[in-house]
């Protein structure tokens, strides 16, 4: 019994939340439209959280993902405003994310700076750069090409599977693709095995022939790339870019990974568990908004749920 609770406590809580909202909002909550809406709302957080899982597998952190996301959006929008084509803006923005992540990786693995400190520093650096490029203003309106903002508004129609009038947004599809890629890399390949080994015991991994530095660096680069992707998705969705729009992503992403970690036996991050964490946060947000619960109360509730899930799982782990 205790074992089941420990293993599946978070999952049961997740189901309880769904049942609760379902009973409170019988008309609107469990409808295809609302679920698809949720999937779109959480898609950016999902991408950041999935790629955050990559570094957290090694017991590392990346606090700079939020400002990387903002920076990527601003860079793309800035290039658009200069008349560069969409593909160029997107590529440069992704490259900026990749290089930013690589920079984090170098600080952490070659200079041996604690990830907390290193990425706290780059958080402000990236954020400052975003302000500098945008001049502190929001870039919007005619500067954003229609093809770019149109991406977030369109999707694949689901008429074929009996859901007339409903479309699966491209943003949600993006999140699923990223989920698959991260899952494949972490769970199926030697790359993932090695990252988990670094998280298990860095010294032992090194002595067993794992190239710890290179791997840590590339993991951070991937997290940066993921953050930039999310930043572009966000900019596309709101058809504008400003230097603070990604800042909410970081804490939520880390919270999602932590929620996921409560689900595995040894408390290590798993990307499918992170998905559950993201869903919990997203569904709470959606349901509470529909119930018109005050947004401050929403924040208190979300924080309390994260803390109690983690506390519950660590207490039940101590008891063995």
């Amino acid at each position: 019994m205790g074992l089941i609770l420990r293993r599946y406590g978070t999952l049961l809580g997740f189901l309880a939340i769904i049942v609760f909202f379902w009973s409170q909002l019988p008309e609107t909550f469990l409808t295809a439209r609302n679920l698809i809406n949720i999937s779109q709302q959480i898609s950016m957080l999902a991408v950041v959280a999935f790629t955050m899982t990559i570094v957290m597998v090694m017991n590392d952190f990346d606090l700079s993902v939020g400002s990387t996301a903002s920076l990527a959006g601003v860079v793309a929008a800035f290039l658009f405003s200069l008349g560069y084509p969409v593909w160029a803006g997107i590529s440069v923005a992704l490259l900026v994310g990749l290089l930013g992540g690589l920079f984090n990786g170098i600080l952490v693995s070659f200079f041996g700076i604690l990830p907390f400190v290193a990425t706290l520093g780059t958080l402000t650096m990236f954020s400052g750069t975003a302000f500098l490029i945008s001049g502190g203003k929001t870039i919007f309106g005619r500067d954003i090409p229609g093809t770019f903002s149109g991406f977030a508004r369109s999707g694949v129609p689901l008429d074929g599977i009996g859901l007339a009038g409903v479309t699966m947004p491209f943003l949600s599809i993006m999140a699923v693709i990223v989920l698959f890629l991260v899952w494949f890399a972490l769970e199926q390949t030697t790359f993932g095995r090695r990252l988990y080994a670094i998280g298990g015991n860095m010294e032992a991994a090194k002595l067993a022939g794992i190239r710890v530095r290179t791997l840590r660096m590339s993991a951070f680069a991937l997290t940066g790339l993921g953050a930039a992707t999310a930043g572009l998705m966000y900019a596309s969705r709101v058809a504008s870019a400003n230097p603070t729009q990604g800042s909410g992503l970081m804490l939520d992403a880390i919270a999602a990974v932590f929620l996921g970690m409560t689900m595995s036996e040894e408390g290590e991050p798993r990307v499918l568990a992170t998905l559950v964490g993201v869903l919990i946060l997203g569904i709470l947000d959606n349901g509470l908004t529909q119930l018109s619960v005050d947004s401050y109360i929403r924040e208190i509730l979300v924080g309390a749920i994260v803390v109690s899930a983690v506390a519950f799982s660590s207490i039940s782990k101590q008891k063995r």
Partner: protein
Amino acid sequence: MTLLDLTHIAKSYGRTAALADASIDILPGEVHALMGENGAGKSTFIKVLAGIVKSDRGEIRFQGKLATIDNPQDAFDLGFRFIHQELNVVPQISVAENIAIGGPYPTRFGAMVNWRELNRRARAALARLGIDTIDPRTKISRLSAGDQMLVKIAGTLSDTGNPACLFVMDEPTASLTGEESERLFKVIAELKSAGASVLYVSHRMDEVMQICDRVTVFRDGRFVETKRTNDTDKDEIIRFMTGRDVKDVYPERTFDLEEHLVCRAQDVSTRRIRGLSFNLRKGEVLGIGGLSNAGQSEVMQALMGLDRILEGTLKISGKAAPQNPATAWEGGIAYVPRERRREGLMLTRSILQNTVLPHLRHLSRLLGVVNRRSERDMTQRVADIVRLKADSLKQPCYQLSGGNQQKVVFARAVGASLNLLLLDEPTRGVDVGAKFDIYTLVRELSARGCGVVLTSSDLPELLGMCDRILIMQDGRQTEIVETRDLDPHGLLSRFYAA
């Protein structure tokens, strides 16, 4: 009257019974050995006595009266002192604090820590072990594992105002050198003549026969037999432990060495060693000997590419020495590091994950996708070779007994084909039977042309397995000796020779 009786102790973890029906009685003033194969339940039994693990069944009587030990404080109050198998020092604080940590700190004005007194007590405790080279003020993480163990032992000897009647030592000599062990034995004799009892766990037959009055054997969590050491012999104890006949000897080399070299070092220096020169032939077993911390591990680290080579040339299999452990493993060099928990294992990960780690390259297909079947096959194969005792290959390593953890580290090293095998204290904490299996495997590997470099604080092991022994002193190579006509005393005197 007995000092302590533990009867019918049982403890299960899920479906595994670590202890099924274990009993012991300890007399006042005796040194009592507790023996058994790896995973027999010795450490679990000790943890029950220490109040760390709660038993499912059984009772504990202290001086005839029923006692309850629910937490470590209860055990301390009864006068029990413990040295557990796994070093549990607090790495960030000083030696003196680690010694004082069980009891109250000495204070001044009732509030401030009296550091001078704290250090004095630590120095006194260390002096009882004949140690004056460890400064009580150093951070303990800077000491070698052997020195940390000595500090831990000193901690139990330190005067706390509450007299101790029982000292429990779980494989204290596993990371000590010969002389350090001898000093410990002297202290044990002193404790004994002062009327205290000692419960002593070890896999080293000779020392058990030398210092213990009685011996109790467990097998698979059950009491098997208690005997006076004078009324029994090594073979009988091994039979009690294993239920079979195991030879307590070193398998002989049965082939002639080839002329080809595996490894050639000429005047090699790194940051920590100087003047390393040797030729290692295919199939040869070269020992690295010396007093504690004379540079034995550092030789391994140089061969493994962990330390940059500052001077001289080092060639392995005709190629330049590896730049890092990754290239070393790729070049067929395998390494069993000295400290299994810190350097060897990912404790929360499964046996399988730990075993395949250095071999992932060989176990993957297109795009680096891991081939799970080959992973399982490799792990099963090497686990069988070392007779690993575990519920399944998915079991996390922290659940294994100390000796079985060591077997995982060894098994991992022999997973792939090898040119050079580096063994730094490979049999630390491993039981007699499994030791013999490991020795046999080393012989098989060397028969196939693999060179072996071995360090061991167990001199008979060094002499029994090695063709030659390279002697280190203060990080410098002094000589290389043939083992053929050497005995442990002769070897030891070479360690001291200037």
